[in-house]
């Protein structure tokens, strides 16, 4: 008989499996039944899953609200663009890039990883300063970080193209690529959350003083979670860029900051499942309303919502969810197999840990 603790642990590792099955199922449905526009919606949603799960790695575990993640996205997205664009077009639009970067023409996968790594590195630097703060002061500092990234990227003519968009990114991100990264982010988030550092960090979230008294170095754990979070956020930025095909600093500012935070909070900030559920629910709702704006035929009568009502309705829906469930839809609970099941089917459980 396995100990209670071991089965609980095993049960917590079932969360990413359930979430991955959910996402794969959705993508297969879309691939089989959907049109091209729906396939794009699926890809877009999965990029958002990657983003919001990355956001959760830091925000969910530390309890510090970050407004700065769109900044890491921008860093990852531009890095991937620098590495994958054709040298001629870089010479034309980004003339101040250093020579080696100008000549670089990487494959998209290593470029996305490089984007993530650069974002993680910047997360380390910025976090080293910002995470000395706590609570709302830390949040404001992350916002200041975002504003700095945005100002620099909007004005650094020869390197980021400033307000002029960077063009010619290969649009390789379809629903399968996005699915791969979303699952990778979910697995990483789960592994981190169940690691010693993740558990320690969540202890500081619940009670900073008590955790400190137990010898937990909050600063170090926060920084580690921000670096991991920064990596996947950077990747999600690269994915977003390679899904739209055109980069502009404006894409990585307040709009995406708020929508990703809203998805996280509405799903339930306390759990990884909440992060995924929030994205899926809001994305499906948005898509339904957009389609309703375009018109639905019922018994030969054309019904359509007026243009622009989608935004208003989605805002109202968010408020209603928050009023009804202030802790989010999942209220901090994870989807996982019940420990009893794992104990009963010991054989299966033992196999999977081998």
């Amino acid at each position: 008989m396995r100990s209670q603790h071991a089965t609980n642990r095993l049960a917590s590792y079932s969360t990413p499996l359930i979430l991955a099955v959910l996402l794969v199922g959705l993508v297969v449905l879309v691939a089989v039944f959907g049109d091209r526009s729906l396939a794009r919606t699926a890809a877009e949603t999965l990029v958002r899953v990657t983003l919001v799960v990355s956001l959760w790695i830091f925000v969910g575990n530390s309890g510090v609200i970050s407004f700065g993640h769109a900044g890491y996205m921008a860093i990852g997205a531009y890095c991937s663009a620098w590495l994958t664009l054709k040298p001629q077009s870089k010479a034309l639009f980004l003339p101040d890039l250093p020579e080696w970067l100008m000549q670089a023409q990487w494959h998209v996968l290593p470029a996305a990883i490089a984007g993530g790594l650069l974002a993680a590195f910047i997360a380390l630097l910025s976090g080293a300063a910002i995470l000395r703060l706590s609570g709302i002061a830390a949040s404001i500092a992350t916002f200041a970080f975002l504003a700095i990234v945005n100002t620099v990227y909007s004005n650094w003519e020869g390197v980021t193209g400033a307000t002029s968009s960077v063009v010619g990114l290969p649009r390789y991100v379809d629903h399968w690529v996005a699915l791969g990264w979303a699952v990778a982010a979910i697995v990483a988030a789960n592994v981190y959350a169940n690691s010693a550092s993740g558990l320690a960090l969540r202890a500081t979230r619940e009670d900073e003083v008590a955790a400190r008294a137990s010898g937990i170095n909050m600063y170090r754990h926060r920084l580690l979670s921000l670096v991991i979070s920064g990596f996947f956020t950077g990747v999600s930025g690269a994915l977003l860029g390679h899904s739209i095909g055109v980069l502009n600093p404006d894409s990585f500012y307040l709009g995406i900051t708020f929508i990703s935070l809203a998805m996280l909070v509405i799903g339930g900030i306390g759990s990884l499942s909440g992060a995924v559920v929030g994205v899926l629910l809001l994305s499906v709702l948005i898509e339904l309303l957009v389609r309703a704006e375009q018109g639905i035929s019922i018994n030969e009568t054309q019904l359509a919502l007026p243009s622009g009502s989608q935004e208003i309705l989605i805002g109202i829906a968010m408020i209603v969810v928050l009023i009804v469930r202030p802790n989010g839809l999942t209220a901090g609970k994870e989807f996982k197999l019940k420990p009893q099941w794992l104990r009963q089917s010991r054989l299966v459980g033992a196999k999977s840990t081998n």
Partner: protein
Amino acid sequence: MKRLALASAVAALALPAMADDITIGFAIAKSGWMEAYDTPAATAAKIRIDEINANGGLLGRQIQWVEADTKTDRQQSAKAGLQVIDDGADMMVVSCDYDFGAPAALSAEAEGMVSFFLCAEDVKAGIQGVGPLAFSGSVLAAVQGATMAEWSNAKRDAKTGYVLLDTTIEYNKGICSGFDWMFPQLDGTEIVGRDTFKNDDASIASQITRIKALPTEPDVIMLCSYIPGAASAVRQIRAAGINSLILNGSAVDGSYWLDATPDLSGFVVPVQGSIYGDDPRPAVEDFNLAYEKATGARPSSSYAYPGYVLIDLWAKAVERAGTLDGAEVTAELEKMQNEPTAFGPRSFSSELHHQNTAEMQIIEITDGAPAQVDQWTISTPVPLDVLLGRN
């Protein structure tokens, strides 16, 4: 508006389009802030489509249109592009702004389909930023700035210029780059100072203080901005008692914002055609009346015109090519040199799918009343290097 709305509703209901109809796909903003810019130009495009249909259609076929809303959102723009392709579009018209139109235009490009930006004025809205099948119906921002420089020097004897750049969007930088290229080339001219601001700055008091600190007031101030920031800047400039002639890009055309600075004088805008009923070319006023008949109001700025022009040019190219094939229509478009349109001649080449020179109408606002005072074509087309920011 009603008639057009009805027509579009009928068009939407008639889907899928009849097999021998030609379909134009509009992937444009029907909600969000871009809507205000896309709708007038799209309306103008539909007026031209109706005219062509009334004259027997194109290649003997009627033209239909389908629409998808980009919601002023880049991701939605890409989806709207795919959607109109799936709805059977043979050619795509995308949003006015490069950023919001490009994702849809890229989808058209991938299908080998010709796409036209409704009124983008960035060189990227074409070969350089989308691909060999993308065009813009408008005139490059740099041409507007260069027109202002040359005209003010020739007609108002402007010798000293001050450049005030709003760094918020690329369009503004395009205007200023045209001015910066042209103005110093002219006889005895000097740019005496420059400054930047952001469109949503609550106040530009310190920028104004810098202008006032100059030993003499500059002859002209080149203001590279758009509404609302431009209106706000003008109000503050005049309030500070600065009386220099203020030069602008086409983006500030339209009398709708003039209340922001009552009794404004000495304010000049270059446009493709006058909405005020005083354009020397009768075809422009005919269009204004057609627009009024279709929507119940005259165009509120000259940004409706490029929509009309682009359908006109594309239809001519299709007629000459005898096919809707993207590559062949593009080849015909690229042969156009000074092709006459209601709004002046237009040219395309295999290097540039944009206008690097154009006959601009000069609108001057005096005592709060705008009027066409002159027309001007720059002496040399803006070179590609300037357009790409390599000068």
